């Protein structure tokens, strides 16, 4: 008896280690692809081609950029905090990686099944804010500090409706387990049952990842580069990687919660492996995020906060109450 427990624990560890290795390979590659994709999307939206020179259609451009970033000097401002300044880029990347642990890429294709998977992802994503605050404060730069302060205020404001919107789904499934949430959608996606929650979730996710039109912490026309003004070389690169990986995570979570995860649309495409559907949905959502960025101007900081506290939070609360009431009555 004890032996089986031990072996199962051992295989669990093995699974996690293998998973982490895969994630460590997947996350940077995915980020490189996303950066390339963003530049292509931006290019085509702006009547130009985007990178074309390095590799076919500029596919290798971001890799070359990455190598360039690796070779750059790491500049530390003279009055910056010696410990926290270099630590912040690492801190920002860690929680993003951990979020991969519970993401269900397909049936059985999840590193660690957890009852509280959804909560775990939110917990990790909140941790990113601390890293941003650390970086902004440790830079000893007013622009960076302003960016960091904004980031914290924004994330606090948008975490609440994000969670409330996700709770509506949790109410329906009665589980925090992401795989169970996906399985509950094998016939109808939750976006059709919970359109308001889906919309709120996606808008808040945009704000969570500091993407335009909510890219206020790094509003380059106001705050130069916001919290990462003073970062150079691969430290800047890590912030960049973290941002794009974070985008992937929130879109993956949105696909899991509202777009049926690894399921094909309306029971179609059963022969196609679930992971393909999952990645496809995630990338479509990522494209929408990019579409946002290259279409909208930036929201002003106070308007952003008003929008969250006065519109998003009440709306998501009402949605949650209605969901609960309907579920009770059924």
């Amino acid at each position, binding site marked *: 008896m004890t032996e089986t427990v031990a072996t199962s624990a051992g295989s669990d560890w093995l699974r996690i280690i293998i998973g982490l290795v895969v994630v460590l390979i997947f996350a940077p590659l995915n980020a490189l692809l996303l950066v390339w994709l963003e530049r292509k999307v*931006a290019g085509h*939206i*702006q*009547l*130009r081609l985007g990178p074309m020179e390095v590799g076919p259609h500029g596919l290798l451009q971001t890799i070359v950029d990455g190598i360039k970033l690796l070779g750059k000097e790491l500049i530390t401002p003279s009055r910056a905090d010696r410990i926290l300044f270099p630590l912040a880029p690492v801190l920002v990347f860690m929680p993003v990686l951990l979020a991969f642990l519970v993401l269900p890429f397909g049936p059985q294709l999840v590193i660690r099944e957890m009852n509280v998977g959804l909560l775990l992802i939110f917990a990790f994503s909140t941790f990113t804010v601390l890293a941003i605050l650390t970086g902004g404060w440790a830079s000893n730069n*007013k*622009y960076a500090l*302003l960016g960091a302060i904004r980031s914290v205020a924004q994330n606090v404001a948008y975490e609440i409706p994000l969670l409330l919107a996700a709770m509506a789904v949790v109410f329906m499934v009665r589980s925090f387990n992401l795989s169970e949430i996906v399985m509950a959608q094998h016939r109808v996606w939750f976006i059709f049952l919970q359109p308001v929650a889906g919309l709120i979730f996606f808008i808040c996710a945009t704000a969570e990842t500091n993407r*335009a*039109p909510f*890219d*206020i912490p790094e*509003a*380059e*026309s*106001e705050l*130069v580069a916001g919290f990462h003004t003073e970062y150079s070389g691969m430290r800047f690169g890590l912030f960049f990687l973290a941002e794009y990986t974070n985008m992937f995570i929130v879109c993956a979570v949105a696909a899991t919660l509202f777009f049926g995860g690894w399921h094909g649309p309306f029971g179609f495409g059963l022969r196609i492996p679930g992971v393909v559907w999952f990645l496809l949905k995630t990338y479509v959502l990522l494209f929408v995020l990019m579409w946002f960025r*290259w*279409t*909208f*101007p*930036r*929201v*002003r*900081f*106070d*308007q952003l906060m008003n929008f969250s506290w006065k519109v998003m939070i009440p709306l998501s609360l009402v949605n949650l109450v209605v969901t609960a009431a309907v579920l009770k009555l059924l």
Partner: protein
Amino acid sequence: MAEQSAPPVQQTYSLNLGPQHPSTHGVLRVLLTMDGEFIVEADPIIGYAHRGHEKMAESRTYLQFMPNCSRMDYLSGMIYNHGFCLAVEKLAGIVPPERARYIRVICSELNRISSHLLWFGTFVMDLGGFTPFLYCFDDRERILDILDRVSGSRLTYSYCRFGGVARDIDEVFVQATRDFIQRLRSRWTDYHNLVTKNVIFIHRTRGVGVIDRETARQFGVTGPNLRACGVPFDMRKVEPYEVYDRFDFQVPTGTRGDALDRYCVRLEEMEQSCRIIEQALDQLPEGPHRLEGLRLKIKPRRGEVYFAFESARGLTAYYLVSDGSAYPYRCHVRVPSYGNLHCLTEVLKETLVADAISILGSIDIVVPEIDR
């Protein structure tokens, strides 16, 4: 022991916006005294691009000074050249042929559109919308090509000459200009859908950076910024120079004097410029494009001249004093951006730093023109 007074609590801090900042459009520095995200005091500090153009004029012949003009406001270089030509012609009593006057107006108005297009792009970019910027540059590129055809340069033209223009325009130029106007008009729908009707854009500009008439008057604000507060002051209408009195065009005005009004006024001005160009092309007379037999080194008679005209940014004027030699005795340029910028000390008070950027963008300054 004497009672220790509490250490002073610093509630404000200063923030340098520029001289190297992505949104100050050139080397402008605004020293902001901030309280959190709010601006308590704004102090524009200028002089980073001072090159002494006015002093340079004293050691150059009138024609040699022509290239300097387009380097003051590099975005409306054609209009600056045009104005300088008119000032010297007024001083020396030269009357250019009719055709040349029409060509100058056409080129100046094209230049005005290109300047406004660039402003439109950068303004929306300051607000975080990157895409319209490239659309505008795509349109502006056509104007630069058209002007490049006649003048040989794309930004600092030096195309006007005393008593005419350097080169005559041909059919290709006329056709390209007509095509461009048609193209620009077809683009308005895109721009309105992308920017003007955007909720975020409206929220970022309506009621932001209100310059009322009184402030505008005190600081000498001119151009679209003044017209946005409802004063229909345009030198082309008030004191028509060249052949502007022969065209039917309106002076668009706003009512509130906020950033949105300034935006709308400039957009409408582009349309009015299109109308002027169309009429000028229709009326374009035949004849020489330049007076023959004029000395290269003109020597106006003793005297002084003040000539005011409307550049893309507002009332611009040359004050020239001649001592009868081939070199100006004194040259002074009244630039619109100076007044437009300095009203910021009033307007920026009690605003957010994000609004400071959109206000700075909406008033459309060109720093080298201020510093000269």
